[in-house]
Structures are given as C-alpha cells and as structure tokens.
C-alpha cells in the first residue's frame, strides 16, 4: 500500500529556482537603475551633482528642483515650467482619446457585424494603415491641415491623433466584436434594433473591457507623443513632452540636471499612473497592440 500524504507540501527550492530568482532580481535592478538615478539626482543640489557621484544618495535632500520644473523652468522664451505643457497635453489627450475610441468602436462594430460588400478590403486597409510609419504622413498631412486652416491649432493636433489612432483601434475593436457570439446580433436584429440602436443598447454595454484597453493605449500613446505634437500643435498648444525637451535642451547657461530629472518624472507620471491603476488591462492592451509590431 502507498502511504497517505500528510503534513505541508514539501518545499522545492532547487538550484534552478535560486538561479531564476537571481536572474529576475538582476533584471529588475538593471531596469530600475535609471529611475533610481533620476529620483536621487532630482533630490540633489547642483554642487552635489557636479561632484559626479551619480549613484550616491544625496547628502542633503533638496526639493527645490521639483517646483522649479513644474512652474519656473524656462522652455524657450517663457519660464513657466511644465505646467502649461501639462494643461496642453490634457487638452490634446482627452478629446483625441474620446473621439478616436468612439469612432473606432463604431467602425469595429460595422466591420464585425454588418458584413457589407468590401468589408474585408476595408479591414485589410486598416491593417495596412496600422503598419504605415507616420513620419511618412507628416508632410502630406501638414499640407492638408494647412489647406483646411487648422494647422498649428488644437483641433489640428486632435485630428491628427484621431486619424493615427483609428486603424489600430478599429482592428482591436473589430477583433473583439468578432469574438462575441453572432447570435446576439441576430437576436437584436429580430428584436427590432437597427444599426445605431443595436450599437448603443446591445454592443456598447458589452464593450467595457476592450474600451478600457483602447483608452489605455490611446492615453499612453498620445501623452508620450513628441513628434506630432511638435509639428501640428502650434506654439500655443505644445504638449508636455515638447516642453520637456525645451527644458532639457538648453543652448546657454547651466544644464540643471536635477530640474531635468524632476521634469522628466513629472511628464511620465500620467502614463505611470494609468499603468498602476490598470496593470491587468495594460498588459492586455500591450497584447492587443502587439500586432502593431
């Protein structure tokens, strides 16, 4: 007869396990190193920074770099810190995310359920659109916006973000909707729904998970954007990333590394915040966005 197992499950701390943990810890340290340097540098004063002990903890904590980065640092000719950039980024991100996600959801729904003639062609077109590097489109789009009279304005940059967001978001929504049972849609059609009614009453209430994913993708993507903001937003609407660049790239005077570091951390706070409150969804977003390459 075999013995009946008793007591707690035996622990298996093998050599392989130990090696694995060592590797993971090393990786974590490696990737956390820049963040560590950024944080401690932002808390040093310039004299200590010049002493060039980059990894040493600050002898004396000095917080003056943070408020300076936020409201006093010079970005070109004005010295109001990142604050206006933050406001601009919010003004750009919020409408861009709402418009692009809403339109993409509608597109994805149409592509998945109303298999109109040429739906597959359109789907292929979206796929193609998602793969085009947008640098290629910058100049033509600039000319178009100039023609429309919205170049260098808030609506101009919102339009650009919406356009560039839509192919990939449409794909994500389409794929999500294609995974829903088609019978639901059939039942809704028999129950008297038309194109818009079915979308609002049946499809949208089921779209929460994919909408969260789409919003995360768009918020981080648009917030982190530099190139489009620089080209299309115009001087008055420059997003935080562009202002950050202006702070860091000084042509005269002293490079204040502590201010640079705190400004950089401030700029990345929003994506970081989004990441921490929605880690689970964030990973899904990355997986969904993975087809982007």
């Amino acid at each position, binding site marked *: 007869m075999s013995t009946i197992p008793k007591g707690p499950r035996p622990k298996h701390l093998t050599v392989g396990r130990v090696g694995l943990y060592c590797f993971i810890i090393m990786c974590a340290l490696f990737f956390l190193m820049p963040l560590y340097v950024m944080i401690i540098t932002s808390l040093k004063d310039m004299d200590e920074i010049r002493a060039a002990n980059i990894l040493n903890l600050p002898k004396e904590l000095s917080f003056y770099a943070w408020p300076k980065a936020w409201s006093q640092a010079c970005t070109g000719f004005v010295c109001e810190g990142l604050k206006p950039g933050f406001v601009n980024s919010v003004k750009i991100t919020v409408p861009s995310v709402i418009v692009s996600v809403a339109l993409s959801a509608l597109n994805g729904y149409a592509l998945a359920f109303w298999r109109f003639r040429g739906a597959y062609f359109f789907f292929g077109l979206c796929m193609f659109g998602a793969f085009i590097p947008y640098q290629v489109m910058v100049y033509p789009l600039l000319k178009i916006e100039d023609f429309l009279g919205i170049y260098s304005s808030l609506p101009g940059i919102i339009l650009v973000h919406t356009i560039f967001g839509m192919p990939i978001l449409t794909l994500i929504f389409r794929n999500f909707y294609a995974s829903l*049972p088609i*019978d*639901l849609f*059939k*039942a*809704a*059609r*028999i*129950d*008297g*729904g*038309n194109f818009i*009614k079915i979308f609002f*009453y*049946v499809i949208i*209430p*089921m779209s929460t998970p994919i909408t969260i994913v789409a919003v995360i993708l768009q918020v981080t993507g648009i917030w982190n954007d530099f190139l489009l903001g620089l080209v299309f937003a115009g001087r008055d609407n420059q997003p935080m990333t562009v202002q950050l660049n202006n702070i860091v790239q000084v042509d005269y005077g002293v490079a204040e590394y502590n201010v640079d570091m705190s400004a950089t951390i401030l700029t990345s706070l929003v994506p970081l915040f989004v990441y921490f409150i929605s880690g689970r969804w964030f990973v899904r977003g990355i997986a969904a966005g993975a087809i982007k390459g």
Partner: protein
Amino acid sequence: MSMKNSVEVKNISFSYGKTEILNDLSLDIKEGEFMVLLGPSGCGKTTLLNCIAGLLDLTDGQIWIEDDNVTWKEPKDRHIGMVFQSYALYPSMTVEKNLSFGLRMMGTAKDLINEKIKKAANLLQINELLKRKPSQLSGGQRQRVAIGRALVRDAKVFLFDEPLSNLDAKLRAELRYEIKKLHRDLSNTMIYVTHDQIEAMTLADRISVMKDGLIQQLDTPKQIYNKPANLFVAGFIGSPSMNFLKAKFDKSSQNIIVGKKQIDISKYENINNLMNDQEVVFGIRPENINIEKNENSIQCKVELVEPMGADTLVWTSVEGNPISIRLEGSSNFNLNDEINISFDINKSSIFDSKSEERI
C-alpha cells in the same frame, strides 16, 4: 391547423461566395403547423431558417410570411420570433430587460410591456428570475427566457435554431415537453431546426429531412419513420438505425437473395414494381424482427447483448451484415445463443441500390 399557408419558401437559392448551400428550394408551411427541419450538420437547415428570418440575403427566390412578400424586409418586420442554440441573451440586461427589449425598440407602452412580460413569465415559470442577469441563470432557465423573448413579441411564426442542443439530456426532455405544450396552447406556426431525430419525431406535425441543401422527404413523422423515401432518410431516422441487407430480387420465387440465404418478400406492398435480378437494399427496423422459428426464418448466433432497461438490443449478423433486434426488456439472451429470426415484411422497406429510392 388550417389549410392556409403561413410561410411559403419559393424556389430560394443561397450561396456563400461560390459555395452553393441551397438551390431552388421550396417549402410551404401551414398556419399553426409545427415544422421540423432535420438533417446532419452542413445540410443547410440552419441556413434555410436564417433565410426565413431574414438574417441572410437570398441569392434568388422569394419568402412569403402571412401572405406578405418579406423577401427583402428586415428581420424585425417579418412578425417572427427566434430562439437560438446559444440562447443569445443580452448579457448586460436583466431577464426583464431581455424580454422587453424588442417591445421597447418598437416603442410599446410601458403597462402593455409589463402585462406581456407577466403573461410570458407565468407561462414559462420564470417569474422568480425577472430581476436576474443571464449569467446567474442555468442553461435551462436561459433557454426559457430566450423562448419568452420570442413569446412577448406576439410573433406569428416562431423559429427555433437547435434550441435544446446545449442542454443535458434530462433538461432537454423537459424543455422538449414544454415546447410541445406551448405549441398546443398557442398554436402558432413553428419552424424548428434540429439534428436530433427524437426531437423531430416528438415535436413535428411534419418533418422535412434535409441533406446537401435538398429536401429528401417531407412528411409526417410516422410516414418518415415507416416509409422512408430513400436510403439516406431510412438510415438517418431511427436509433439504432435500420438494418440493411444487400440483395438481389428473384421474380419467379418472389424471394430476395442475400448471399446464400433467401427471404420471401411476397407480402411487400410494392412487390410488383420490382424487376427480376434487380439489385436492391432490404431495410428492416430492429423492432420489426421477431425471434421465432418458421419456414421463412434465418438461423444465426447472438453476438452482443445491450440491455437498455425498457428494451434489450440483441446483435447478430446475416451473411456478414450486422443486424440489431429490439426485444422486450425482460428477454434473456446469452452470447452465442442460436436464434431464429424472421422479418416482418409488411413493415420493411426495399430500396433500389442504384437510385437509393424506396420501391
């Protein structure tokens, strides 16, 4: 059941790209009739149902419901209600909202909606569930709600797309009974798609057996079971299925010859249609074989016994062809017992082996 047609399918064709699913198919369904579309998967029965519902656009032909050409009408304007295999309840809505969705879309008055929901809920015994979400219901309860959703719409024609296939055997029998009762009480026209022959036999006024997009036989369950039009129908209906023996007809003796054995079929109803030396397939249902010794019986050995409670299935073989015999549950046979079997020729079917049609 009146003689008026409720649904008329007129010469319809349907193809997905180049794959033709239905070709020039016609079918009339009488008012109040329970029509079952039966066939193996891929036979086009669900496609036909979806065409009637208006969920698929025809390539050719017309569909009439209640003397109205609905060929190009939206599903919502066809006076139909549909029940799906996957239940297709709206997951974000409560049972009550699920039931009322169609009425709300039509802009029905609130108290009328409540009245109709109450009636349907009573009929289906889902009063207790009205405030729940579909995810909090069992499969059987979900399907009741789905039936209720079709009910509240006052549909003239009910369409069922394999509604019981996702349920376990016990629930399936229960709900089958309820659907039959529902039809008895409401006497609406119902079109029911299934691959389950028991459902078809028990529910249908008429069954339309389909294969490869063609209707093989359209008749009452009794006729289909007793006088299958061809080999396919004969083999598809009945479990265990009909026994088949390849044979040759000998006109002078009125016997069919199976290998070395001879079977007298002079009592077969259409014997005059048989020609000498004609190659045929002799079909006989397991319950139409008797164990008795007479001048026409064949001796064979018991090869397997399957007791099923109500009846017992005995397997043997004639000239290498496996034969199943359905006997009373109390009958007692052992392996290798010698038995003499005789066929009830009145109840047999004989098919031409080339055309596979019943003679």
